[in-house]
């Protein structure tokens, strides 16, 4: 077996965390090697070290048998390493071609030869069967296409070793399959691939070998053909896990939220919601499935008052809330666990106590007139921390000091404790470990059972399938189907999410 990459004894420490602890890792020529691990296990860190973005605190790296010192991504590129990052590294107002050639521009005299660049990109895209317009602006293309741009960036630089950090998080099942084919082709071309994911099914279908990482340490490296999903899950988490949620059948009641022909535009003024119709009842969890970028984020922004609608309306318990301010909407009884806890959910530089009352800070009992009652606020925060098992020294530390999972628990605690008519949970478990996921799921089901309406938005099909009572699929700004979760299959959802239709099938569940 020819080793193209070998990492030995890698240790990397961040303030407060040992992200990599004496890690050994090797990549064989022509293989697809999965790095598997929970959130925060240290997978990205390890790859960032290989790509020269981080410097290890100790350890050695060998590429093609030679010891190397990778100080910058430039060094990595020279060694034939390419990386597709977990969070895309694209300049949004640049064209596809500009993004790809950046740093390795074809020149004509002293100017950039844009014509040449566009040609090169086209040629490269054709070679790998990507359909992509080199002159399109990044912010105008879909996430799936952006992903391809990322891969092209690596290939354009002649990468033989390709690192893909969670490339499937934002893809439809069909696109994931397509990616699988692409990867197989790349391997045939003689490239070696490191694939990061924590989705076990993908691991089984795509890889040759798997290295499992837990809390910064390598647990084991195994051949995919010699292992099983359950075994991988156990190694990943460190204990036996059940991925199923226990819940009683729903007892749906009256319609709480009614959305009628709702329309909205994105930040560039292009329509993203093209007439959404939806009802959410009390005592049910309605899941919205869809590929990222089909309008689910905007839909939630509109019904929480964060985005203006351009048509249609939405009604909560008979009260038209269209065009109301976020504060009015909160007061009307909508609570919202936002998809991005760092951007929306928390003021990271505020204490947990201050964060605990965000949205209710101005009203009794937390404030009287303009004076805030910090004693009450702290007391309240302590209750939340206790009830939701938020791991923190006390309520006075800044939110930024908590781990992602605990931050998320804090947000969920705050929103659930508002005792809302409608609870919106957007990506409620993104970036959380299994334990935290279990907990959040349990709380959502509890809310349902207390007769609340829950609107769940998630990119994780498993989560949608497990948690929802009904599933609405959103595609291109419209709800293209509503299924009963009991009968829905991943395949059906995938077809709908990709814009197909279930002609000969039960278009079931539309109540």
């Amino acid at each position, binding site marked *: 077996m020819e080793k193209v990459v070998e990492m030995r004894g890698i*240790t990397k*420490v*961040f*303030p*407060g965390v*040992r992200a990599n602890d004496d890690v050994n890792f090797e990549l064989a020529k022509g293989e697809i090697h999965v790095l598997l691990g929970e959130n925060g296990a240290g997978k990205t860190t390890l790859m960032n070290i290989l790509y020269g973005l981080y410097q290890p*605190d*100790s350890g050695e790296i060998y590429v093609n048998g030679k010891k190397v010192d990778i100080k910058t991504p430039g060094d990595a590129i020279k060694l034939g390493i390419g990386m597709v990052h977990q969070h895309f590294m694209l300049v949004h107002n640049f064209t596809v071609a500009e993004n790809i050639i950046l740093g390795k521009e074809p020149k004509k005299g002293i100017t950039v030869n844009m014509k040449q660049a566009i040609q090169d990109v086209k040629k490269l895209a054709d070679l790998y069967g990507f359909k992509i317009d080199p002159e399109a602006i990044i912010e105008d293309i879909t996430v799936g296409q952006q992903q391809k741009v990322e891969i092209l960036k690596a290939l354009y630089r002649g990468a033989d070793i390709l690192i893909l950090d969670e490339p499937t998080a934002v893809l439809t099942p069909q696109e994931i399959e397509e990616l699988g084919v692409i990867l197989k082709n790349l391997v045939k071309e003689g490239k070696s691939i490191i694939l990061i994911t924590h989705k076990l099914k993908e691991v089984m279908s795509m890889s040759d070998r798997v290295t499992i990482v837990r809390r910064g340490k390598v647990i084991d490296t195994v051949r995919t053909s010699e292992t099983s999903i359950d075994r991988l899950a156990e190694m990943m988490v460190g204990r036996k896990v059940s991925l199923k949620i226990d819940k009683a059948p729903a007892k749906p009641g009256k319609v709480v939220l009614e959305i009628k022909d709702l329309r909205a535009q994105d930040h560039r003024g292009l329509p993203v919601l093209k007439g959404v119709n939806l009802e959410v009842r009390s005592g049910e969890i309605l899941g919205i499935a869809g590929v990222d970028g089909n309008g689910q984020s905007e839909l939630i922004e509109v019904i*929480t008052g*964060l985005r203006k609608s351009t048509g249609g309306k939405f009604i909560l318990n008979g009260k038209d809330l269209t065009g109301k*301010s*976020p*504060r009015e*909407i*909160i*007061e009307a009884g909508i609570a*919202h666990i*936002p998809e991005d806890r760092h*951007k*929306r*959910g*928390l*003021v*990271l*530089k*505020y204490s947990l106590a*201050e964060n605990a009352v*965000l*949205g209710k*800070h*101005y009203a009794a009992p937390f*404030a009287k007139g*303009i*004076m*805030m009652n*910090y004693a009450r606020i702290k007391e309240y925060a302590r209750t939340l921390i206790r009830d939701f098992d938020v791991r923190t020294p006390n309520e006075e530390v800044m939110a930024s000091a908590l781990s992602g999972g605990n931050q998320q628990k804090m947000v969920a605690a705050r929103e659930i404790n508002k005792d809302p008519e409608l609870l919106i949970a957007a990506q409620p478990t993104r970036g959380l470990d299994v334990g935290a996921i279990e907990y959040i799921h349990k709380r959502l089901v509890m809310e349902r059972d207390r007769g609340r309406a829950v609107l769940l938005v998630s990119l994780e099909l498993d989560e949608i399938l497990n948690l929802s009572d009904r599933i609405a699929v959103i595609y291109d700004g419209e709800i293209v189907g509503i299924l009963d979760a009991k009968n829905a299959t991943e395949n059906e959802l995938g077809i709908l999410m990709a814009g197909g239709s279930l002609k000969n099938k039960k278009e079931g569940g539309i109540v």
Partner: protein
Amino acid sequence: MTANANNSHNSLLNVLKSTYRTLLFPLISIIVAMFVAVLFVVWGRGVGFFEGTSLLFKAIWNGSFGSKDSLIETFVYVTPLLFTGLANAVAFKTGLFNIGVEGQFTIGVLITAILGLISGLPAIVHIPLIIVGGILAGAIWGGIPGYLKAKVGTNEVVNTIMMNFIAMYLSNYIVMGPLNKPGVASTPEIRPSAMLWRFLGENNRLNTGLFIGLLLIALVYILFWKTTIGYEIRAVGLNPYAAEYGGISIKKNMILAMVISGGIAGLGGAIYVSGIQHNAMELTGFIGYGFDGIAVALLAKSHPVGVLFASILFGALNSSAISLQLVNIPKQIVFLIQAIIIIFVAADYIYKWIGEKRKKEAMING
């Protein structure tokens, strides 16, 4: 009971610790800046290092705290800086850069110089009148760019710069035109009923404005950390997206912060006229307290209590300009010191970096 006492003891300790930590770096900066300034003295005067050091430090001490007169003058300078420092701090807290404090201060000066001329009012009416007038004028002057930023999206930096100049020319028009005192490039002296009490005697310009400034520090402190307004303003400054999500209007708070900031600056202008200057003068350049206030707020890390210390430092340096000149040290040294202090304050990341490195080493080895 004991637990409680323990608790409060702890929190006191915490406050001390954090104060020490926030004060330490500016303090180091100040000391380093002073020594850099010595080099300039050495160069400029052609004296040795030790002589230069003693010359400079003696002069600064004499000129700022060393005598009763200089002490008084120091606090005369401190007074307006308290206001402009606080005004800048408020804006910084919302994530806005209000370069316009200078203009808002100027407008406060102007309005007070005008209102102060009204005759026949008892002091008990007149002083509140000018104070309200100054606050309103400054608030409007700050509110306009705030409004434009919130509603039209125009950059507040540009607009506040523009409004500084507009304030200056407007003031000059009034001072040299309708309200000109013949023979002098200023408005007539305001009525005694509009003057703040000079509690050390008519000949010492120190006045009750200082206490208004100190009171304002407390008020701003409470505003920031005890009221919903402060909660919202800070939230918008730290994370506008989260604030918006929490039902806090970004636009409203931007305007509000600019209005409050401008109001404080305008109040500073009012205090300046009614306590110190007693009229508005023709301006050949900016008065400067607004710009100095930026430096004060930066040095104070936008903390109201820090503003007090930073103002005293700047006031002391300003007031020592006299004693420096008297020993033939160019007073430019004063401004050099101020600038170098701010440079070192800006460089405070270096301390953080050292701290982090230490922590990390502990972890690798541990």
